[in-house]
């Protein structure tokens, strides 16, 4: 099917896989207990915006929901555009479970509105000796670690170590070639 589609020049974007997004909430316990990596109170969802009034409507709905959840959980949010024109919903909350719930809510809303294909990644920030990001790629349906260093370099050895230590707890992307870095994240 996929081959025939490509021969006929049909383009469709893979749907977002959110089933394993939640895995971070249990993994966070192990990350803190055995690796000393604490949730750093910030998370975000990266979305490829679309030229469509319906997309704007979805965005408004997400903002309304976020305002509501701010009243309930006290999660702060901001919507930002990065230098590559991707939209970020940035959340900050010292309570990790609230972060996870709200990230889930943002993704859910976007998917219900039919923009699941526009979801790129969800990112959770952790802090130990260095800042560690766990990036969830919606197309792959898996996590990978990203440890940025100054000057657009990444600490690959630390990332590999995190992979081998967390493999059992977290669905980690096996193909390291797909561990795309994300520089200049607004969180």
């Amino acid at each position: 099917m996929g081959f025939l589609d490509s021969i006929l020049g049909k383009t469709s974007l893979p749907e977002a896989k959110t089933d394993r997004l939640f895995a971070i909430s249990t993994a966070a316990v192990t990350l803190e207990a055995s690796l000393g990596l604490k949730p750093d109170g910030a998370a975000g969802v990266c979305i490829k915006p679309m030229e469509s009034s319906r997309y704007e409507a979805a965005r408004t709905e997400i903002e309304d929901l976020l305002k509501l959840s701010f009243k309930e959980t006290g999660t702060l949010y901001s919507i930002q555009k990065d230098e590559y024109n991707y939209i970020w919903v940035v959340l900050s909350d010292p309570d990790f479970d609230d972060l996870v719930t709200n990230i889930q809510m943002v993704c859910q809303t976007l998917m219900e509105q039919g923009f699941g294909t526009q979801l790129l990644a969800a990112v959770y920030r952790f802090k130990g000796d260095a800042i560690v990001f766990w990036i969830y790629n919606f197309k792959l349906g898996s996590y990978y670690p990203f440890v940025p260093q100054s000057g657009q370099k990444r600490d690959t050895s630390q990332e590999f170590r995190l992979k081998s230590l967390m493999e059992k707890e977290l669905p980690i992307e096996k193909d390291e070639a797909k561990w795309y870095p994300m520089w200049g994240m607004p969180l």
Partner: protein
Amino acid sequence: MMKWKSDRGLEARMLLTMILLAVLYLAFLAVLLSMNTSSTVIILFMGGFMFLQYFYSDKMILMSMGAKIVSESEEPELHQIVSRLCAIAGLPMPRIAIVNTSMPNAFATGRNQKNAVVAVTTGIMQQLNRSELEAVLAHELTHVKNRDMMVITIATFLSSIAQILVRFLPFFGGGGSRDRDSGGSFVVMFVVSLVVWIVSFILIRALSRYREFAADRGSAIITGQPSNLASALMKISGAKVPTQDLRKVEGPVSALFIVPAISGSSIMNLFSTHPTLEARIEALKNIERELEA
């Protein structure tokens, strides 16, 4: 629910063109094989040649274009744009190359998704803003995704054999043979080859234009912003006269360029590998309307 419809009309035209090509080629093969044994040798020889071209096409094209593969540290911005597009489209990350020329252009090559190379010229990087460059890269990534290199290689294979026969048959068959039978078969073969060459030429051009539309569409879908590609195309086509030698940029590569190297209104639509700018912009506008529908 927001869903991308597929362009049934375009797919149908593409399929029809491919079927016509296949029928034409099968008939051609039947004639070739029934008439002359030396043509089998030509087919085998050309087959081997095309096989090599298919496997080394990426290196050959990069070399002939003077494209240089760049690493992530050399061109972090390009890599970041492409890696995000690949993540959205679920594609493996291609290698990225840069051609040092003021002519604004971009192309994709490589026999499959894993061996793909996406190249841009320094000219296009200077002329376009980031969103437009992103749209162009998404267009090239769609070429990779759609396996256009393979489709065009297969489509041109027997056409090139017909072309060779038309050019060289006179040397083989014409002069020396006094035998009437072989003279007659020579004429038939020459005419058949000529017809196959001309018809396949037109079909390949049509196919190639359809694949451009498909790549434009893919770019719009991947970026979510059809207007970016439209403005990129307008900017590029309004560019200055190319500085590159015609012989350097002509040939099979031209089919995978974002704008053809040889442009000019004098070339009839039927014979050009790329659709006109107006048709492409119009198609992008339609996609934009689809987004709102």
